[in-house]
């Protein structure tokens, strides 16, 4: 915890998104991980931000409601292509 300052927390916060998305160079990731080892609050912010993103991800099999799809095709005069969606 010797290098743990509020300044480091703020710097980490600025890079948090890119760290989560795996867009930072390895050297910088190492520095961030070193800081995380000694900073409970930053670790919590990282974990809860990651989980927040997981929770909003959309299920792969989600589809628009059938009636909405039907009205869309009719509105565009494409109802002759309104076959059941595969």
């Amino acid at each position, binding site marked *: 915890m010797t290098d743990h300052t509020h300044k480091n927390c*703020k710097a980490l*916060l*600025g890079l*948090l*998104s*890119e760290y989560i*998305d795996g867009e930072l160079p390895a050297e910088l990731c190492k520095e961030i991980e070193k800081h995380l080892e000694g900073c*409970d*609050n930053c670790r*919590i*912010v990282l*974990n*809860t*931000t*990651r*989980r*927040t*993103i997981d*929770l*909003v*991800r*959309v*299920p*792969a099999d*989600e*589809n*628009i409601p059938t009636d*909405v*799809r039907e*009205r*869309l*095709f009719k*509105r*565009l005069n*494409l109802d002759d*292509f309104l076959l059941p*969606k595969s």
Partner: protein
Amino acid sequence: MINTTTQSFSIEALRAGDRAEFALLMDAYSTPIYRLGLKMLGNAQDAEDILQNTFLNALTHLSSFEGRSSISTWLYRIAANEALMLIRRGKSNVNIEDLQSENSDDVIMPETFIDWTILPENELLSVEAKNALDTAIKKLPESLRVVFILRDMEEISIKETAEILNLTEVNVKTRLLRARMALREGLSAYYGERTPPKEKQ
């Protein structure tokens, strides 16, 4: 999310008025565009209007689509514009270009430090929790909300999100971070009340 990225469409056929190709395009993108409308506006009727207007608009302007961006970028741009115009209806001539003038680059500092990730899945994924999440999304300013929806819900790259919204990649990243931080705070307030005291600080 449906897999739209690997599906390709014949621009020539679309521009030539091939209705079957346009129907395929609608099936590929109607789900994410409807969802964008739903999350931006928060209600099904507006989402349906955005969906229909997006494809009507696309159909009308296909002949002028030059292919400088991908068809998906182009469609999302129309949809985002439709959503933003609907949100700001009543204020004149406001569209996607106005996103650029909103400078809010300050990082939102976290205030809640509770590790609610230890909660069981059934609590994290409850209907009530989903409502709390939707409420938190609704509270985001639309300039952050649209970035968050495209990037984190639809998993569109930073580069394409920037192209869709006519923003720089740096700008998209800044807004994404702000949106993520704001939602994390919103969820921390909700889940924090349900987390055992020893995890609270």
